């Protein structure tokens, strides 16, 4: 049996571990055109800020890889030949597979304005991008960041940490308006300003002006010009579907996969950012660009590839990030509307967050500690916890477990209610009942 995995992200690595836990003898091959193999992509943000070194980003050593007995092939898969159960590599050689996992991820949407090919126009998809940013930052003084969501802030904070003056351009009147509420956006914006970031609202890029093929300034639609040496963008991501365009796999915005991560070809599986997986919460197939779902999907795909029937039960979306130095947990559905700074979904984002549930909002803030709950008829539907994270784990469990909060619902709805205390007290009782 030969298992082939295209892609070296966490979904692919988790699949290898799962396959090996079931099948000790089968041959496993991972193919990727990313020469860095498996590393922590979200960790690139902390590499940019200088909180860790490049070698720290590799979670596994050669010892681990040897124990898993798989081979890594650096190369590009140029075609999938379904009827022959084979892959074409770099347009030349062929490789047969028995079971195939497509885990090629997503990539940044390109900036389509004049000047976007100039040196100094950067994104943050891969290790190579982060290295490029650090190299360019050494000879730069000023950077302009466009886009929304988590990646735009990671770029902002990384460049700031490298001593650059940063201008952050926002299309609307506030940051990440489809996930954060007005107050939360203001908290983040206030902290960015305190760090020295210059925020420009209602602003759109018209073109990037170059000098000797390098970024020299950006011109805005308002006519204003900002001199800069770097232009970093994060306007959303899109699953990499080039490889599967014409091979009759069911596609929507990603590769459609059932709860076994299986596509309409029983020998081809999909996991991670490229997969659009059925979600019981919303009753439809959704895209996620989160680390943990990618890992879980990879594990489930691996088990099924090795013949151990396993179903993927998508938990409510959940992500932890740092927004302007503020640890922030986003659980379940908390957002509303769409963000003009993002096309598609942003990295570290999940579509479920943007479905406005039929729920009421209760919130409480303590300077930099902030919590917002979305309350359904009987249960909590979503929550945002910023700053103090003590309650984020209980909230995560209560939302995932569908805790019936009827007994405290009225109290939570009272204006200025001490929601943190109410949740903490409720958790103590509920936890015992749920045997957590």
């Amino acid at each position, binding site marked *: 049996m030969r298992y082939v995995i295209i892609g070296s992200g966490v979904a692919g690595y988790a699949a290898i571990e799962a396959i090996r836990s079931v099948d000790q003898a089968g041959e496993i091959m991972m193919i990727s055109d990313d020469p860095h193999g498996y590393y922590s992509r979200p960790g690139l943000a902390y590499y940019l800020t200088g909180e860790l070194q490049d070698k720290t980003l590799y979670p596994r050593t050669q010892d681990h890889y040897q124990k898993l007995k798989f081979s890594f092939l650096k190369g590009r898969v140029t075609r999938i030949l379904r009827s022959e159960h084979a892959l074409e590599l770099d347009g030349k050689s062929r490789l047969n597979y028995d079971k195939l996992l497509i885990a090629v991820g997503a990539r940044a949407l390109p900036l389509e304005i004049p000047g976007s090919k100039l040196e100094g126009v950067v994104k943050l998809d891969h290790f190579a991008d982060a290295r490029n940013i650090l190299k360019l930052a050494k000879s730069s003084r000023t950077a302009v960041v466009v886009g929304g969501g988590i990646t735009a802030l990671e770029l902002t904070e990384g460049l700031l940490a490298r001593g650059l003056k940063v201008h952050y351009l926002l299309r609307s009147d506030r940051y990440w308006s489809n996930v954060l509420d007005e107050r939360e956006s203001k908290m983040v914006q206030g902290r960015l300003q305190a760090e020295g970031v210059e925020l420009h609202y209602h602003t759109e890029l018209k073109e990037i002006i170059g000098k000797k093929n390098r970024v020299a300034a950006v011109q805005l639609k308002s006519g204003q010009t900002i001199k800069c040496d770097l232009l970093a963008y994060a306007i959303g991501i899109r699953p990499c579907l080039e490889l599967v365009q014409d091979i009759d796999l069911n596609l929507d915005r990603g590769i459609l996969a059932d709860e076994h991560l299986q596509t309409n070809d029983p020998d081809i599986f999909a996991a991670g950012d490229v997969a659009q997986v059925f979600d019981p919460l919303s009753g439809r197939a959704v895209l996620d660009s989160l*680390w943990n779902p990618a890992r879980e999907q990879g594990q489930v795909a691996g088990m099924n590839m090795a013949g151990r029937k396993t179903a993927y039960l998508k938990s409510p979306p959940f992500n932890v990030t740092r927004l302007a130095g503020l*640890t922030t947990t986003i659980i379940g559905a908390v957002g509303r509307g769409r963000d003009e700074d993002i096309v598609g979904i942003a990295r570290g984002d999940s579509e479920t967050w943007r479905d406005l549930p039929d729920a009421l909002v209760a919130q409480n803030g303590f300077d930099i500690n902030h919590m917002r709950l979305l309350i359904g008829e009987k249960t909590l539907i979503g929550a945002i916890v910023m700053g103090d994270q003590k309650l984020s784990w209980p909230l995560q469990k209560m939302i995932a477990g569908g805790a019936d909060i009827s007994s405290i619902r009225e109290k939570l709805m009272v204006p200025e209610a001490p929601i943190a205390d109410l949740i903490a007290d409720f958790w103590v009782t509920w936890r015992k009942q749920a045997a957590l």
Partner: protein
Amino acid sequence: MSLLNLFKRDATRRTTLYSGHVVSDSARCVQCGICSYNCPIEIDVRAFVWRDEAIKNSECLTCGECVIRCPRGVLRFTQTDLFERRGE
């Protein structure tokens, strides 16, 4: 803060250090490695988190460096209890 409270806080901290250990919530972790990178005795904290295990390394100083440095709140202290559940 009164002097008494200061002593109390310090005592609580010491109690946590000698009677506690570090536990993880692997769902929050992205394997960036800041925890392992900052461990003064080079415990591979991240590997424990990947397996959804508590950091039960007999050499752990419970200094709390990994807990503080983690940007995603993956790690926290808990009282040592031999009969506790996995990942708790």
